[in-house]
């Protein structure tokens, strides 16, 4: 088959093989409607797995994922009753793992799947999971910092993820400060992006060249649910993007704000 013919056939093939899956449109819509409606009407409250801590979500828009998970607890029975699909099961499984002291995760690193055990890091104002075989969470001045457990040789640029809470500045106020700050030390600073993954907020990305060891800095800024922000400052280098960079990204997917 020549290139052009293959390209023509690709659309027909992809569409033809999925014609049967579009007929559940209304069923899926009803499910979405019910979820949105229930989530909006629920007072969000959860307890840690052993009942040690109450976790409250102050605002619906703060982190999003917690809202989904916790509201799901209230609707699981409803979901099971009406939609006996894998969806309900998937949610339950996710909920069961919530705040587990440790859990197994599979992360895609450079195209391969990497299985690792991650350990709950229980801080005053948030939780995060890290792979303690590869990383450690240290405290440096007023901020938490995740760094490789085995320090890198001097030839490598810094690899770290700093987590800090700034209680008196909103993400909107902070984001331009970071753009300016990175602009003074990086060759390229990308436009501010609004992201929903791995966290919901702003992303400022900067890179210093195109060499294997060019420094990369990604700063995610999210609301802390009040008048302030959480800032995640990811530092690594170009060659480590799909290694350390991907692992930091997956750690952030597990980040949750909590309150005593």
């Amino acid at each position, binding site marked *: 088959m020549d*290139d052009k013919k293959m*390209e023509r056939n690709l659309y027909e093939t992809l569409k033809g093989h999925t014609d*049967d899956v579009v007929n559940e449109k209304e069923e899926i819509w009803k499910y979405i409607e019910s979820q949105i409606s229930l989530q909006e009407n629920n007072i969000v409250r959860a307890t840690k797995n052993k009942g040690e801590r109450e976790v409250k979500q102050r605002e619906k828009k703060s982190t999003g994922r917690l809202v989904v998970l916790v509201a799901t607890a209230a609707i699981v029975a409803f979901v099971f009753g009406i939609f006996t*699909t*894998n969806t309900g099961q*998937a949610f339950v499984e996710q909920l069961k793992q919530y705040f587990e002291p440790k859990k197994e995760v599979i992360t895609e690193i450079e195209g391969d799947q990497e299985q690792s055990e991650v350990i709950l890091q229980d801080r005053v104002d948030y939780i995060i999971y890290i792979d303690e075989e590869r990383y450690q969470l240290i405290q440096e001045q007023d901020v938490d910092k995740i760094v490789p457990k085995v320090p890198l040789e001097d030839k490598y640029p810094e690899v770290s993820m700093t987590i800090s809470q700034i209680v008196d500045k909103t993400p909107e106020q902070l984001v331009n400060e970071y753009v300016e700050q990175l602009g003074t030390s990086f060759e390229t600073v990308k436009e501010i992006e*609004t992201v929903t993954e791995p966290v919901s907020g702003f992303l400022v990305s900067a890179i210093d060249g195109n060499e294997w060891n060019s420094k990369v800095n990604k700063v995610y800024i999210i609301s802390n649910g009040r008048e302030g922000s959480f800032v995640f400052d990811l530092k690594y280098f170009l060659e480590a993007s799909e290694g350390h960079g991907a692992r930091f990204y997956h750690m952030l997917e597990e980040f949750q704000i909590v309150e005593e």
Partner: protein
Amino acid sequence: MKEAEIVHQFQKGDASAFRSIYDLYFDYAIRAATIVMNNNHFYAKDAVQETFIRVYKNIHLYDSSKPFKPWFYKILLNECNRILKRNANVISIGDRVGIMNQDNRVKDEMNRYVEYENLYDAIQKLEYHNRIPIILKYLNGFKEQEIAEIMNENLNTIKSRLLKGKQKLKRFLNSEKGGM
């Protein structure tokens, strides 16, 4: 009403516009998710449901100066990735739900069916990083630059993955012919 206007209405708080977005995007979203999820229809539904819920909850984060479609598909792809990772040990390539209902009585039709079937099998055999750009380009009609933005990669990486993806497809198809 044009797509941009619908999205704008939704951003302004018109909840009924959300249904219009659903009508516009559901069809190709479920198709793409199904292929990304190796034909596991349950996971595809899960991903699409979660995507629309996320769109509803996070519409305030969408930058209306940019096209909506890449933003939507970025969320969809993230949801697919999350479900794939969560269920990495249970995904079955053989879990097919969409078998083409072709009329096989006519020989030409049969040949075409076999050709599509082989091509589809070849697409499923592609590695994830080659398969996704192929789906986004040929099923969803994205430009390479848009795919780069959706996948958080640079343009050259996407071009290379598309090229290698197509080369691999050809190799799969040729080996299929050789084996017949």
